[in-house]
Structure formats: structure tokens, C-alpha cells
């Protein structure tokens, strides 16, 4: 069941379907908390981060389709245009799938840089759509990319701890 490859192990940890769904539900609920003012500008993109996590760690399970459906849900809740978040999350999921093998070779801090680039791409897609339809861009929106990238390390550690099987005392 388990291999003795120290670094690679986190990518081989099992993840149940229920766990994946629950993580997405938690991300969506965090996203829907009543953020306002500066907190809103600094709010990390929880759904995007979790999506990216699963796309890089379990690319066979979570892909562009799931990203798209999540995007539609977020679109309705935020009353943005239909497809705005969906497009951004599709691009994000694709980026995660493409970089899946590459990201595994780096440690968490180096992964954060990759995550920053991918999130910047997805945020840009969202902002460009908004700019095309409404004609302006709120620049403080991009602050969220920085906070999201900073959140990558704690989030990965948290999810790994939750995914780790409890039976083996040597695991922790």
C-alpha cells in the first residue's frame, strides 16, 4: 500500500471521494463568509486553491469539468456573469493538470511560486472578462493572488495531515 519514497509519498496518499467533496464544500463556505472592505480584497481564493491542490495531487480524480461546475456555483452566489468564474477555474484546473508532474519535484515554498503564477493567470482571466463586459478593472482585486499563494503551504500541510492514515504510529 505504501512506498518508502520520502518526498513523493504525499502525492501517493489516498484520498476518498467523500474527503474531496468535503474539502470543496469547506472551501465554498469559506468563500461565502461575509467578507467586506479590505478583508474582501485580501481574501484568498479558497475554491481556486483547493481545486489546484486536487488537480496537482489527484489529477485522475479532479479536472477541468469539476472546476467548471464549481465556477458556475460561485458565479451564482457572487451574482457575477454566468461563466466568469467557470472560465477562470477551467484555466486554473488545466494549469494544475499540466504542471502536475513538475510541481511534485519542488518543495512547498517553490510550489507556492508555481501556484502564484497559475492563480495570477486565473485572476487575469476573470479580470479581463470583467474589463471586456463592464469596461474597468479594480486593481486591488489582484492582492488576492498574493494571499492565496501564501496560503498554499499551510493549506497543503493541513490537507496532508488530514489525509494521512492514522493507523501507523510512524507516520506522524
Amino acid at each position, binding site marked *: *500500500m*505504501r*512506498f518508502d519514497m520520502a518526498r513523493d509519498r504525499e*502525492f*501517493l496518499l*489516498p484520498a476518498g471521494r467523500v474527503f474531496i467533496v468535503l474539502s470543496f464544500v469547506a472551501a*465554498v*463556505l469559506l*468563500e*461565502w*463568509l*461575509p*467578507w*467586506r*472592505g479590505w478583508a*474582501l*480584497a485580501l*481574501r484568498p481564493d479558497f475554491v481556486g486553491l483547493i481545486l489546484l491542490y486536487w488537480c496537482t495531487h*489527484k*489529477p*485522475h480524480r479532479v*479536472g*477541468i*469539468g469539476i*472546476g*467548471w461546475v464549481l*465556477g*458556475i*456555483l460561485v458565479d*451564482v*452566489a*457572487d*451574482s*457575477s*456573469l*454566468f*461563466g*466568469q468564474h*467557470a*472560465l477562470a477555474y*477551467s*484555466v486554473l484546473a*488545466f494549469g494544475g*493538470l*499540466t504542471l*502536475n*508532474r513538475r510541481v511534485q519535484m519542488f518543495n512547498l515554498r517553490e510550489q507556492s511560486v508555481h501556484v502564484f503564477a497559475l492563480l495570477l493567470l486565473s485572476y487575469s482571466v476573470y479580470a479581463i*472578462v*470583467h474589463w471586456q*463586459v*463592464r469596461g*474597468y*478593472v*479594480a486593481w*486591488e*482585486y489582484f492582492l488576492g493572488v498574493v494571499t492565496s499563494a501564501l496560503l498554499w503551504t499551510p493549506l497543503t500541510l493541513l490537507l496532508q495531515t488530514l489525509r494521512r492514515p492514522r493507523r501507523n504510529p510512524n507516520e506522524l
Partner: protein
Amino acid sequence: MTLEDTRTLRFFNRGPSGWARLVFFSVLSLLLLFVDARYQYLESTRQVIAVIIYPFQRLTALPGEMVGGINSYFSLQHHLLADNAQLHLQHDADAAQLQQLRTLQAENNQLRALLEVKQRENYTMQAAQIAYVERDIFKRKLFVNKGALADVQAGQAVIDNAGVVGQVTRVYPWLSEVTLVTDKDNAVPIQIVRNGLRAVVFGSGNISELELRYQPINADIEIGDELVTSGMDGTYPPSLPVGKVVKIERDPAYPFAHIVCVPLAGVDRHRALLIVSSVPPPPELPPSEAEAKESQHVNKAAKKVKP
């Protein structure tokens, strides 16, 4: 399971490739975007999804509400007493003013009757609570806890105790979406109290700023001028306070003056708001047409009676 995951990613073994999927979902998104931006076809879909996710959204608002509830539960008695005394004072002062208002209203009606000016409509209001604030940084919107089931309609004006807050732009069964006056896409027709000048004030996208655009450099506007709704659009009832001019830049290099106002209403402060039913009853038919209609009715009745 582990073995399966150690394989390299081979998209072709599992259906369409990554690129194909990306293109498919991107085109789908762009199609939806186009349809949603140009037409109204997707409103019903949005309603259905909104109903499904409504309980989750209430769930996320719970922690804040609980903190508020706990705070008010543990509020000290002397605070409550002080509040109560202050409210009593306020009530007395308001009652005195209300007396005056009644006399003034009567007088106004009389004068309007004398001048044969149309009487002002009375607008019905209903109270609503802010359910949650929009979490999209690009927009200034909020959601209130009254929707289509409480007869809220898109287009109604929303006010608080100080002035206009915004306008209902989308109605769900239990919620409605209110676009604030400071939203970039919102425009309110106004009138300046001091000299009656009519203009349109636009949101700036900034939570505490409005812009009075397209005013010539020599327009008679001063700092401190109060803006009230003019009621010209039939959406906002007339003479509700909207904002106050705080900054005027008259640069002769530009054709228009740059005028900045602040909203008077606590656009980002209160929890309780009022939704004003601003749709007045249709005007009465002119006498000639009314008679024609009446005679038609009579004719029909007569025809029915004949055989």
C-alpha cells in the same frame, strides 16, 4: 488505488485530452458569458441554482449573526437603559416634528390643489435586513432577506434612515440583490436642493464616493450642496436625500467639471433597510377615453341583454 495514481497522465486513455477539455469548457463558458451579458435567458437557471445554494449561504452568515446575538444577549442593563432613554427622547422630538409634518402636508396638498398640480403619491415601504454583502470586489452590491415571496420587485428603490442606499436589481424567492448607489453601473437622477438644478449622479465604484458627471465648468454647484432624488425616472421617489458635494475641480482644460459627492445614507453601515414600492398606480384615463370605454361596456351589456 495507489498504483493507479503512479501512472503518468495519459489523457487519451481517459477520454478527450486536456487541451480538448479546456477548449470545450472555455467555449461553453464564453457562450454562457455572451448569453448572460446580452440576453435575459439564464435568469431562471440562476434562480434555480440560487434556491439550491440558499441554505449554505445562510449557514455562512450564521457565525456573524451568532456573535451579534451573543453580544446583544450579554449587553449590560445600564446600556439598555441609556439606549431606551435616548430613544424616548428621539421619539418625542420626532413626534413633535411629525405633527408639523402633518400640518405641512395638509397645507401642501391644499396649495397643490389650488395650483392644480398633481398630488404627490404616497409610497408604501417594507423593512428588510441585510442578509449578506456582495463578495465580489468589482461590484457594490448586497443582498436583503426579502424576495419575490414578499412582493419585492426589481427596480424598487432601497433607502435607510438617512437617504437612498440603492436599487433592487434582481429578485430571488427569499432574497433580493440590491445595487448600491456607489456601484459603477448605477445612476440616480437628482436635483440640487439649493437651486433645483437637475443632474444625474453616478457611482464611482468606491464605497464612499459618487460622481456628478457631465456638468459644465461654470455649473452652479458649490461644495456642501445637497442632492435629492428628482423622481424624473419614475424609479426613485422624489426628494429623498442622496448625497452631498465634497469636492469640485474646475479645470478649463476639460469640458466638464470633476465633482465628487459622498452618499448620505450609510451605504456600508446599517443592517436594516427599507424597500420603497415606487411603482405608482397607472394614471387615470383621460375623460374622453374613459367615457368611450364605459360606453363599450354598456354596449356589450346591452348586446348581451338583447337576445
